[in-house]
């Protein structure tokens, strides 16, 4: 008779509700007749995410002191739960954005995978040892590989999925190998135990650490591990891209923070520099490449690389302020990413062709709500006031300054300046072209009514702008979450 460990089911409730939603949605693909399949599967997925959000909030409230559950493989603390709230909220919005996507079949599978991916991410942000780290990573990655390819009618979808699979698989392998090296050096899997056993000058450990960072940077799509990002973001169905840009990056960055701070505090002098270098690379490469893009999705993909750079600045500060900066920034960042891709999705459904700067012309005046929202998202990415992006960047820079890296502040400021060109370029395309410039090729009829997508965009707008005004409550949440880590 084997005695299983004690399991705190409440701590896993958010993850499990998403798994349950995934299972039910998958069943609906078989049991529910065709026309009803999409609404049923989508509502199951949405319910799963709503429940996960609720559980994550409840867990946040009821876990003031973080502790390990399931033989310390998983942390129940406010860091995980705050990330969980952000992820589950993103998933809910992604579900709303997905609903009207032009897709002929596989609705049940789509929502099942979307829920399962969210479950994997919620699990991922709570991981507390190297096994669960890899498990969580693969869990949501495999779901995303399939989601990218699920719409077989979509040109480039399969290519994107294959690229993501190969490069993502490579990234996972690097992470796994790094984990093996760390295990070899310390004989420990748990993050806390690695920290206790760690030898700062053990080259095996340092190699392992470097490979783990690289593996996580693949997922966060930070340069120079970003090669897959533009193609995958462009090829995947736009709602999936929205979800990946917001949630995958958030999960990867939170785990990077947790892993480095709890498992490798003794090597902080190494990984802070490494992260700063990755941040600078991301800022430079992401911004310069975004300047020359013609497709809006590709531009947003490169912009997400540069945003990863800004958030890595916060992580690299290795301080409570840095953690707060990251957690705060993730809120408006997730909203802006979801919102901007949602607007792209709306335009795509209207035109039936990939969205470029050219065919965004006049969009702002035709669909003022979406246009103004997109304007706000672009300003937010560029760090303008009246959006949470401004406060997030300010916090990230403040963390870098507090760490003594004024040069990093300067790099960030210059990157922001460069980024204005393409963010405002999109605003220019939407609002400032004369009607003669418009080359519209609508696929017929008036623009599809899409109340769900518009609601999602408005929600993103509210979060983007609201996080500028309600800094204090959000930063309090972030501080409690950051206090789960010991700096």
């Amino acid at each position, binding site marked *: 008779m084997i005695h299983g460990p004690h399991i705190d089911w409440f701590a896993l409730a958010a993850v499990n509700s998403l798994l349950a939603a995934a299972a039910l949605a998958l069943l609906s693909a078989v049991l529910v007749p065709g026309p009803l399949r999409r609404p049923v599967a989508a509502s199951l997925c949405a319910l799963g995410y709503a429940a996960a959000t609720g559980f994550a909030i409840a867990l946040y409230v009821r876990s003031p002191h973080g502790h390990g559950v399931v033989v310390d493989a998983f942390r129940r603390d406010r860091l995980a739960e705050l990330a969980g709230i952000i992820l589950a909220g993103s998933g809910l919005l992604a579900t709303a954005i997905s609903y009207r996507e032009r897709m002929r079949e596989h609705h049940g599978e789509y929502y099942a995978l979307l829920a399962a991916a969210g479950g994997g991410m919620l699990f991922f942000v709570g991981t507390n040892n190297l096994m669960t780290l890899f498990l969580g990573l693969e869990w949501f990655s495999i779901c995303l590989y399939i989601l990218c390819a699920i719409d077989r009618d979509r040109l480039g979808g399969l290519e994107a999925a294959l690229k993501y699979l190969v490069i993502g698989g490579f990234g996972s392998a690097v992470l796994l190998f790094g984990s093996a090296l760390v295990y070899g050096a310390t004989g420990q899997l748990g993050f806390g135990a690695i920290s206790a056993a760690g030898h700062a000058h053990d080259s095996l450990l340092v190699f392992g650490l470097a490979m783990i960072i690289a593996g996580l940077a693949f997922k966060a799509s930070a340069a120079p591990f970003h090669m897959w990002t533009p193609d995958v973001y462009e090829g995947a169905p736009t709602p999936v891209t929205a979800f990946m840009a917001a949630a995958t990056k958030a999960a990867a960055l939170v785990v990077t923070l947790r892993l480095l701070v709890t498992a490798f505090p003794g090597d902080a002098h190494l990984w802070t520099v490494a992260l700063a270098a990755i941040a600078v690379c991301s800022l430079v490469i992401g911004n310069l490449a975004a300047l020359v893009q013609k497709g809006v999705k590709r531009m947003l993909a490169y912009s997400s690389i540069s945003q990863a750079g800004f958030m890595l600045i916060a992580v690299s500060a290795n301080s409570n302020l840095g953690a707060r900066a990251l957690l705060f920034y993730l809120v408006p960042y997730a909203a802006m990413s979801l919102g901007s891709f949602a607007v792209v999705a709306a335009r795509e459904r209207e035109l039936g062709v990939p969205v470029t700067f050219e065919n965004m012309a006049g969009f702002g005046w035709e669909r003022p709500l979406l246009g103004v929202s997109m304007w706000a998202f672009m300003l937010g990415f560029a760090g*303008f*006031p*009246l959006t949470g992006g401004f406060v997030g960047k300010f916090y990230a*820079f403040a963390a870098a*300054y*507090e760490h003594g890296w*004024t040069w990093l502040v300067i790099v960030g400021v210059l990157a922001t300046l460069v980024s*204005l060109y393409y963010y405002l370029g999109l605003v220019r395309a939407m609002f400032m072209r004369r009607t003669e410039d418009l080359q519209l090729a609508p696929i017929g009829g008036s623009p599809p009514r899409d109340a769900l997508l518009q609601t999602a965009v408005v929600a993103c707008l509210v979060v983007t702008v609201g996080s500028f005004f309600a800094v204090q409550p959000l930063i309090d949440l972030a501080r409690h979450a950051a206090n789960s880590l010991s700096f």
Partner: protein
Amino acid sequence: MTTLLILLPLAAALVIWVLPLNDISAGALALLAALVEVGLWIQLLVRYDFAQGGLQFAQERAWFSDLHVSYHVGVYGFSVWLVGLTVVAMAAAIAYGFWVGRDRVRAYMGLMLFLSGAIVGVFTAQDLLLFYAFFEAMMIPLYILVGVWGGPGRLGATLKFVLYTMAGSLLMLASIIVYGLSQNTFDLTQIGQSSSDWVFLGFVAAFAIKAPLFPLHGWLPDAYRESSPEVAAILSGVVSKAAAYGFLRIAIAKFPEPVQHYRAPILALAAIGLIYGSLLAFRAPDIRGVIAYSSLAQMGLITMGLFAVNDLGFDGAVLQMVNHGLVSAALFLLAGMVERRTLTGELTRLGGMARGRPALATVLITTGVIALAVPLSSAFAGEFLILAGVFRQGWGWSVVGAVAIVLAAAYVLRLISAVLHRDVGPAVSDSALDLRPAELGVVVPLVACLLALSAWPAAITEHSFRNDRGQTDVSQGFK
């Protein structure tokens, strides 16, 4: 009270954007909001205790406490005048935009009101980060206002404008972070003085581009030419004053030592800008070019007054900020009115418009005469004080300034004669009307303000600083 001044236009903007109003009611509502704003400002002016001076009508709330950033607004004597300039010029600009009938009225009026709220915010913010937020928030409506409603070259003009100004303001952001975190507060009334040259230069970069100072004025001619006249009026009349205000309130007041180090180079740039701008204004081929380059010159003069760092210089600079704001707003609006009748601003195609158009001639000449600083005008008082102030830093500066005043007379008189006198130009048709009553209603208040200031310049010079001692206020960092 101060918060109300900021929020009223923002709230009106939201109402106009959200409610499905028709063109007339949207414009009327915007104008009403702008006039109520003027009324509020008059309240502020009456209730501000000039005898006591210092920060009044202050309101404070924590924004995010862990980094000691707060929403803190309030007004000093000189900010009362700058807020007044803002609300009066904005009301005129909105009225003009309403009368001309811009496309997409709701979007347009909403953005104008938004801009108005942001500018008032800049002049009243008492927290560095809040100041920055308002300073940047000005850019959001300006970008769209120039880019959508501007002339044919508007796309290039907006791009240049945004990249120039943002380059400066992002350097300022870096400075704000370093300064605020090192002093452990962002509150302008509490933050101590700093001796860091780099931080000072970050602020100077932002303000020098916004003003603009020579040689950072590359964005200026295009932005002023391509935007619609009322937006150009606000840009040169009011937005540029945000930079001068920043020099006074932050750069000079908080960085006494770096000011000593960099005074000579900054004065030199200001002086070069003054002469260079005046010469370019004299050579400019169109009305807007003349006003645009004269703005460059005037901002140089104001900067000279500020960096004289003494009572006379500060008084003169504040007076001249208001003067120039009113003058250039009025001139740009008049330029717009002329262009509307002739479809061109080229001086060679204009001329002879005075004949049969007495109102236009009277208003333009009155404004022009004040602009060229004839004795008894408010501009004369301002420029005299600035020259007297900067004289203490070396008589050479005053000589440069005096030369520039002569040049100002030359370019203003050239402008007046090219538009009003000489033979009737090819673009001027006999059917072009005199100023309509509505147009008079827009510019006459601005000119009336100028005449009032000419009659009593001491209204500003003696009511800007505590006990009329600008230098004391500044040396204490406006605590």
